[in-house]
């Protein structure tokens, strides 16, 4: 039989010292989810510059002087954008790893090691993010 479980108010942040792994996983999953949906709207807005660019002459497109290519190249030329992209990767990787963990929990797999799998998600996120820094920063200087 299912029954509701009173987690207490997450907004009551003074309780943070009492939080266990599951609560942190819940908070990080919500936070990274908010960031990712916010990014999706921004991403489509930036990519939409392809609509006016599609009307450009072939020579302009080949030279990369269209509004889409120029927008992306300008953004990628900013060190701040590159750093934000590393942050986005970290957020996405954690959401994916913790999400995979949640799917397994929903399937009843690894119920006894939920804390360990959360810590593993955090460590793996850190490792993947650090390993990706050179690729994401390449050409920014």
């Amino acid at each position, binding site marked *: *039989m*299912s*029954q509701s*479980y009173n987690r207490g108010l*997450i*907004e009551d942040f003074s309780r943070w010292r009492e939080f266990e792994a599951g609560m942190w996983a819940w908070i990080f999953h*919500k936070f990274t*989810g*908010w960031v*990712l*949906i916010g990014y*999706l*709207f921004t991403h*489509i*807005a930036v*990519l*939409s510059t*392809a*609509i006016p*660019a*599609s009307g*450009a002459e072939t020579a302009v*497109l*080949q030279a*990369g002087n*269209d509004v*889409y*290519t120029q927008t*992306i*190249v300008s953004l*990628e*030329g900013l060190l701040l954008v590159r750093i934000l*992209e590393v942050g986005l*990767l970290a957020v*996405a990787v954690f959401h*994916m790893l913790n*999400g*995979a963990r*949640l*799917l397994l929990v*929903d399937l009843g797999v690894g119920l006894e090691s939920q804390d360990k799998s959360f810590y593993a998600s955090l460590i793996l996120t850190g490792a993947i993010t650090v390993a*990706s820094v050179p*690729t*994401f920063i*390449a*050409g*920014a200087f």
Partner: protein
Amino acid sequence: MAQRYSSFDKGGRMWLLQRVTAAFLLVVLAFHFFLLHFVHHADEVSFLMSAGRMETLSYYSLMVLFLLTATFHGVNGVYNALVNQGLTGTKRTVIKWTLVAASVVLVLQGIRTANAWAGIPLY
């Protein structure tokens, strides 16, 4: 007896869809990041390269499906988070339909963009 700690209605269609889209997104988001940051680098992006990929039907359809599932998963996630925080009544209805409208705009704009690359004259 096993307890359920999830706030979702078990057996609900939205509950299942959130998980089915999650499984799909796990694979496609990893592919997207890998292709556009590790195979190609973000600062090498050009309209013609993006168009070259999007003119392939398999890539175009994968990206449209990616957009649809990501929008559903993200917006439904936001809605669930707000409901978890106690959103009820008229506010809940207003926010629900605002999120639906935002999703429709996002998907339409995304498809218009994909069409612009693919050379499909519907944008």
